[in-house]
C-alpha cells in the first residue's frame, strides 16, 4: 500500500506512476491571482446584487 500512502499524503516512498503524472500535469496548475479590480467589496456587492444567482445556500 506504499503507492496509496503517497497518493493520499504525498509522503513516504513515491509511487512511480503518481510521480510521473504529477510532473506532467503540474504545468496545468492554477496560478492566477484574483482579479480584484473587477470585484466589488462584499458589502457593496451584496446591496447591489438585485438579481440573485441560482446558488444561495
Amino acid at each position, binding site marked *: 500500500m506504499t503507492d496509496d500512502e503517497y*497518493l493520499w499524503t504525498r509522503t513516504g516512498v513515491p509511487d512511480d506512476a503518481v510521480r510521473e503524472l*504529477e510532473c506532467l500535469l*503540474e*504545468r*496545468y496548475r*492554477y496560478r*492566477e491571482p484574483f482579479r480584484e479590480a473587477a470585484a466589488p*467589496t*462584499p458589502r457593496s456587492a451584496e446591496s447591489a446584487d438585485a438579481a440573485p444567482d441560482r446558488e444561495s445556500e
Partner: protein
Amino acid sequence: MSSLEHVVDTGALVRAAQGGDRAAFGELYALYAGMVHSIALARLGADDAADVVQEAFLRALRQLRRLRDVNAFGGWLAAIARNVIRDVQRLGCRRADADVEPAHRDTQHEDMQARTALRAIRALPAVYREPLLMRLVEGMTGPEIAHRTGLTPGSVRVNLHRGMKLLRRRLEAAGTRRRP
C-alpha cells in the same frame, strides 16, 4: 497555500469576509482556487477553466453574505463553480483547444504526454475526475481535498485509489505508460 490547511479556520475566514474583510476573502481564494480549478478542468479546456475560477469567485463574493453555514463554504463554492461551468457549456463559447497550450512548455513530447494524461482523466467516471485533478494537478493531499470539498476522508481516499488504478490501467493500455 496547502500547508496552511490544518491551521486555518475556514469558518472564521468566511465570517470575516462576510463582514467586508477583503484580505480574508483573499485567503479563501488562495485556499480554494485549486479546488474550483480542478472542478472546471475536469470539464473544460485550460483557458476556460481559468475563467471559471475567476467568475465563480466573483459570484461567491457577491453572494457571500447569504451563506448561513460558514463551514459549508467549500461545497457551496463548488456548486457555484458547477453553475458557471453549465453557463459556459450552454453558451457554447468554449475554447476547445485551450489545453493544447499548457502554461509551461517543456519538450513537445512531454506536452503530448501531459495532454494525453489530462484527456485520460477527463474520460474517467465523474466521481474520480475531480479528486484526481486536485491531487495530480493542484498538488493537494487527500486530507486537504476532503477538508475543502466537505467530503469524508474515507470517500476521497477510495475515489483517489480507484481512480488512480483505473487511470494507470488505461494509460498502460494506450501504451503511454509502461507496465511496472
